């Protein structure tokens, strides 16, 4: 057993910290930025520019591809990659397009051809191409295998017709990955295929949806006779379900909230220390409990990363990781508004808002955490069935 980081890892963490201090200085932190993806405020141009700038800077450092195999320019080190995510999240620093960097890239490495990987990975590694995920549909959320969007073969192309929804950052993305039905005659899991798609292709209509934070974070996307070249089919025709399951597993690992939770708790602790009134014994106990839970979330995440670093593919472990981290974030957000009382209800930009309105923003934003990337209910099904072998019927 070894629960420590080695010297190289510690030194790297320091380097990342210094980078973030320099590139994301305090004057840029005067608004809440805690969305997991796309980590920007909808269509606000300044935020988008900052996201793109930081993304390219992280890419220039080769810090978006540390977990990849060496032949694709990585260092084969999921733990080093994780250090970048931890430091970025702790400071709520934008710059990581998780849909590209953490969902798609490992999927491409696992299922894509050499040629496909070489075509798309460099843009992700450099932080230049922004990706979105196109899975859910209006009538297909948790029951993803019921999707209706069709992809029909036509010469060197597939023609896509249908609708996707809840697609984070689709209004900003240059590329997307999409699951569509290629053979309606086959059992529903077996007639699906996974494509990469240029979001500028004619026939795509994107409507941003206003969410309850009053931001444009996710979208609905319509496909009308959209032509996708066959070279962008990943993993083979009718093999899309397996590719998607891998993407969802990588996605679950990416929902690591403990660094942002810890960052938020640390700021609350600073506030409590400065406050003339001591924290009530009840809230003090609760705070200690959340500090402990944050540690548990961290180790549950490291377990999944460790398995990946050994070349093992985690299954139920990533569902535990995501489930625990997302529910913890909600508990912490709820706790923060309790500690702050009336101040916890003030929005960003208001007079007297604590931490630029972060608590109210976090309280609302974390509601989505247990829905996206598979709901907590689906996570629990996965844990019970894949982790414990409980029967499906």
């Amino acid at each position: 057993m070894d629960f420590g980081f080695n010297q190289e890892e510690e030194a790297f963490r320091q380097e990342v910290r210094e980078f973030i201090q320099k590139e994301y200085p305090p004057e840029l932190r005067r608004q809440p930025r805690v969305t997991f993806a796309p980590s920007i405020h909808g269509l606000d141009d300044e935020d988008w520019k900052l996201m793109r700038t930081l993304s390219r800077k992280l890419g220039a450092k080769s810090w978006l591809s540390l977990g990849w195999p060496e032949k694709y320019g990585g260092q084969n080190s999921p733990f080093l990659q994780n250090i970048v995510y931890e430091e970025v999240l702790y400071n709520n620093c934008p710059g990581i397009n998780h849909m590209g960097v953490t969902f798609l890239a490992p999927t491409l490495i696992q299922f894509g051809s050499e040629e496909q990987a070489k075509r798309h990975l460099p843009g992700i590694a450099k932080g230049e191409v922004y990706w979105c995920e196109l899975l859910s549909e209006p009538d297909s959320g948790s029951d993803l295998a019921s999707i209706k969007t069709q992809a029909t073969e036509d010469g060197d192309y597939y023609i896509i017709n249908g609708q996707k929804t809840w697609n984070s950052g689709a209004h900003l993305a240059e590329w997307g990955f999409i699951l569509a039905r290629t053979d309606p005659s086959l059992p529903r899991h077996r007639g699906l295929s996974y494509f990469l798609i240029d979001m500028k292709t004619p026939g795509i209509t994107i409507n941003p949806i206003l969410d309850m934070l009053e931001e444009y974070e996710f979208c609905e996307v319509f496909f009308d006779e959209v032509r996708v070249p066959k070279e962008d089919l990943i993993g083979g025709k009718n093999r899309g379900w397996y590719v998607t399951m891998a993407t969802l597993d990588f996605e679950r690992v990416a929902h690591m909230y403990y660094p942002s939770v810890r960052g938020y708790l640390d700021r609350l602790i600073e506030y409590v220390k400065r406050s003339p009134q001591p924290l009530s014994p009840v809230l003090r106990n609760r705070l200690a409990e959340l500090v402990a839970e944050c540690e548990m979330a961290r180790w549950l995440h490291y377990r999944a990363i460790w398995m990946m670093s050994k070349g093992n593919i985690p299954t139920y472990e990533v569902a535990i990781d995501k489930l625990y981290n997302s529910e913890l974030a909600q508990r912490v957000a709820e706790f923060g508004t309790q500690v702050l009382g009336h101040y916890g209800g003030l929005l960003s930009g208001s007079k007297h808002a604590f931490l630029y309105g972060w608590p109210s923003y976090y309280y609302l934003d974390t509601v989505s955490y247990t829905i996206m990337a598979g709901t907590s209910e689906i996570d629990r099904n996965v844990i019970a069935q894949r982790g414990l072998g409980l029967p499906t019927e």
Partner: protein
Amino acid sequence: MDFSLTEEQEILRTVARDFLSTECPKNLVREMAKDEKGYPPRLWHQMAEAGWMGLIIPKEYGGAGGSILDLIVLLEEMGRACLPGPFFSTVVLGGLTVLEAGNEEQKAELLPQLAEGEILLTLALTEPSAKYTGDGIQTKATLRDKEFIIEGTKLFVPDAHTSDYLICAVRTKATQSPEDGITLFLVDNKSPGVGCTLLKTMAGDKQCEVIFDNITVPFGNMLGNLNEGWLILDKVLEKAVVAKCAQMVGGAKQVLEMTVEYAKQRVAFGHPIGSFQAIQHHCANMLVDVDGCSLVVNNAAWRLSQGLPATQEVAIAKALTNERFKRIAALGIQIHGAIGFTQDHDMPLYFKRAKAWEINLGNTNFHLDKIAKAAQI
């Protein structure tokens, strides 16, 4: 970073699980809960022969020279098996204290016997105030000639009734700071004036009230330095807390396995109950807690094994494991239904231990307070 066990630890785990499943069946566990002694001497000697008492005793004293990482592997298995008897008091509370505080002569005298399973030890720490802090130590010792005279009451002392020696934490000096002025003594349980009363406990574990009525202890029985006993206890208790957590993790794992097995077999409405989401989600929550506790406990143990500061990590391990083992044991009964509430079912063994072990070595509030202090709140 590496979360795997060594090959030796894997072997220890397999051997311990096999041995305990044969030699420590649950009817024996239930029998021992009612037995006054609380353990079968034959089993104790078999464990000694297997080298378990000496697992963490250095080789020069006849042990195997293992670390706390080896110890927690074994204790997990003991927790799974609900092993009755004084292993924890003798090896963890007693052995670690002697290792930490004993002088060369004391170690050479006691540790080889301990490793052979020939003597039983325990730690007489808590008193009627039931505190794990220095101010809880009110039992007094006064020096008269070359002997100490000890007077006071120790309460909730594990396995005192069968121990050969009690390691007793005693106030030897009145000071400003309650952690100062405490000294440890090795007390022969047969000393005139030692009165021991066995308490009746929920989990059937053996706890005693021990009254020291002006007993005489030779100067040479002092363990460690005069008035500096708390420094030793602090170190021993950190390890003991992690060791206790390992037992709880073992118990939690066993409850989950038994419950999942039952949920696969038991049919209701024409389907195994394990196919219902209500049951699956309970089981999923149990697995999250089992895995999470196992990781935080192993982290705390690893830090201790490396000599790294671990105050907060140890408190986190106990605070989390306390609550989660209880929750797991309760869900285990819930999923079994009424059969899980019966005296001769195995579920209640774990449910009762979850409570007993939560109280033992600091309950949740005690450890949350430590976490808050470490975070400077």
